[in-house]
């Protein structure tokens, strides 16, 4: 095996006051320290595997109840309550013994999101501990971690960490004398955004094309290799050990009502200190962008923020004060998504930005459902035409008429995801599109988001 990477990243992980009672540090313990992934460091400095020992002494149902009580919502994007998801898993009956699997979704590909990478880089044992607790709660036989193929060095690191856990007796046969056998395998993806969708991920894990499946049957009934399966995001599973340590009721006090806990927000784009910030849910967006990330890096005013990864509808100035949790962002017409904030200043041409985003969805559509496969390509063609000065006013109505024909008409949410940026850009920045059509040039002069080489 190759040596584990020791090169630091140059973005921010912390801020003054981080780790205090107001801003608890639950997921990013030791972030920035490249030796933090070793088992002894995790055990000695970060209360490592305390939660696992506690959980293994409890009844599996009690563990699930604890996670339910914490109100933890899935951090992958949809915000589905994690404890409820765990309770959907069928139990053994005297006549039938089931093989259940826990799958961890580490196919982080949403533009603007880079949170799972940080957990895998600096705190892989917390994920392993979360997977052991989850595996115990659902009495799983195996845990699979599906990680995107580009993260090769993180896969090597996670495999080394899993081996350390195996050597310590936390994985394998008869874990800590409970009579329960469980192990974790890492599976490497191969570069497909769609595999972040849970059933596409399961197909990919089985060695197939990553095309989403028809639901039902849901993964809890028929998932990986035809067995009952639960798929959770890396961040969701990494949040489980703190919950078990502090107790579900205590964890539920962090954050805002019905959106408990802390969340890792990644800030990228035009800010002074791009990076990863762990904050309680419901922290106002302008506090994060202005205070923590330092505001605009260019000195120009911030025009738009995408609040949770590229799929979320953009927000303009009047919504910059939104408290960042699933419900509040939804109320403002956007989504909590995967917690990646993309900050754009006034120099950004929204037409170019939208074209770049739609190009991504056109490229990543798996091609299974016609509305998404064709619709995203047509949106790309029309936006391309507008961007290159050959747009017509009717094109705007055409674009607006396309999105309702894509959204909610596909097997998976990729089609809906493409509609988010498209609709919001048209609603909030229609004047930029009109300017492009009339003057055949960008409203924001000098915006260069698209390269002259390559395919475009």
């Amino acid at each position, binding site marked *: 095996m190759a040596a584990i990477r020791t090169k630091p990243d140059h973005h921010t992980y912390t801020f003054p006051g981080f780790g205090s009672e107001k801003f608890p540090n639950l997921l990013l313990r030791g972030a920035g320290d490249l030796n933090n992934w070793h088992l002894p460091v995790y055990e000695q400095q970060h209360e490592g595997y305390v939660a696992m020992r506690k959980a293994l002494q409890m009844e599996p149902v009690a563990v699930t109840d604890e996670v339910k009580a914490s109100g933890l919502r899935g951090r992958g994007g949809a915000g589905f309550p994690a404890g409820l998801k765990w309770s959907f898993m069928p139990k053994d009956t005297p006549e039938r013994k089931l093989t259940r699997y826990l799958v961890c979704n580490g196919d982080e590909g949403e533009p603007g999101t880079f949170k799972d990478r940080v957990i895998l880089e600096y705190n892989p044992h917390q994920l392993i501990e979360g997977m052991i607790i989850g595996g115990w709660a659902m009495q799983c036989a195996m845990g699979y971690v599906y990680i995107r193929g580009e993260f090769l060095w993180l896969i090597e690191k996670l495999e080394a960490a899993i081996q350390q856990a195996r050597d310590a007796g936390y994985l394998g046969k008869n874990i800590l004398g409970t009579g329960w056998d469980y192990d974790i395998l890492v599976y490497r993806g*191969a*570069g497909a955004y769609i595999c972040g969708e849970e059933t596409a991920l399961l197909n990919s894990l089985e060695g197939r094309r990553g095309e989403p499946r028809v639901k039902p049957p849901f993964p809890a009934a028929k998932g990986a290799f035809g067995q009952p399966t639960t798929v959770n995001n890396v961040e969701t599973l990494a949040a489980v050990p703190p919950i078990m340590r502090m107790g579900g009721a205590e964890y539920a006090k962090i954050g805002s009502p019905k959106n408990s806990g802390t969340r890792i927000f990644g800030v990228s784009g035009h800010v002074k200190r791009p990076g990863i910030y762990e904050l309680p849910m419901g922290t106002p967006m302008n506090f994060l962008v202005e205070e923590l990330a330092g505001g605009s890096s260019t000195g120009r005013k911030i025009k738009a923020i995408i609040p949770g990864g590229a799929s979320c509808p953009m927000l303009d100035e009047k919504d910059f004060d939104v408290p960042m949790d699933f419900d509040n962002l939804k109320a403002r017409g956007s989504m909590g998504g995967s917690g*990646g904030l993309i900050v754009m200043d006034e120099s950004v041409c929204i037409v170019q930005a939208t074209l*770049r985003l739609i190009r991504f969805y056109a490229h990543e559509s798996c091609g299974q459902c016609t509305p998404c496969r064709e619709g995203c390509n047509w949106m790309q063609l029309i936006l391309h035409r507008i961007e290159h000065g050959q747009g017509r006013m009717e094109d705007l109505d055409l674009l607006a008429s396309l999105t309702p024909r894509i959204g909610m008409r596909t097997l998976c949410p990729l089609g809906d995801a493409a509609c988010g940026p498209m609709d919001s850009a048209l609603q909030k920045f229609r004047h930029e599109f009109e300017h492009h059509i009339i003057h055949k040039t960008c409203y924001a002069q000098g915006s260069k988001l698209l390269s002259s080489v390559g*395919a475009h």
Partner: protein
Amino acid sequence: MNHPHSPETSNEPLAPGQRLPESERKAFSPEALAEIHAIMAQYPDKLAATLPALYIAQREFGFVSLAAMKAVAAAIGIPEGHVFGVATFYTMYQKAPVGKFHFQVCTNISCALRGAAQLLEKVCERTGVKPGQGPSPDGLWSVEEVECLAGCGVAPCVQVNQDVYDELVNEDKLVEVMEACKRGEYRPWGY
């Protein structure tokens, strides 16, 4: 439709009528076969070995050629068509030869906001190759425009071969990385 230039990508792995380039190698080495068989034994279904086996094929053959796909199908004992379908679905399996150092530049939104488009142009200029047009004459470089690499915080983000991310914020840093490649500090393609 009146498009100035077609936004269809020219480097689609399989445009209609296009044929895959062939590799010199036609079969796996015994070590690689043993590796694939070990992977098959780890999973409840041998089909799950398809993706890892294609990575091994890419390493052995240099790129995923038709012969490589056939070898994977034979090694696992699954239909060739299945392997072809999988290999052409995922973008990380290179269906044509690449350079010893394959630069993958993310030009998605977060990187574009911090100059990824200009960086891609610089990379092309320095290496003398265009995205998706195969390796440079000396076989050292190739360039690909890719989607989000989850390095948004250190944008613009570039990946060299399979395992190195870097923060190429300016041209000096790019030259530095290219020199490091030449000195052999980065794992070459198919390490």
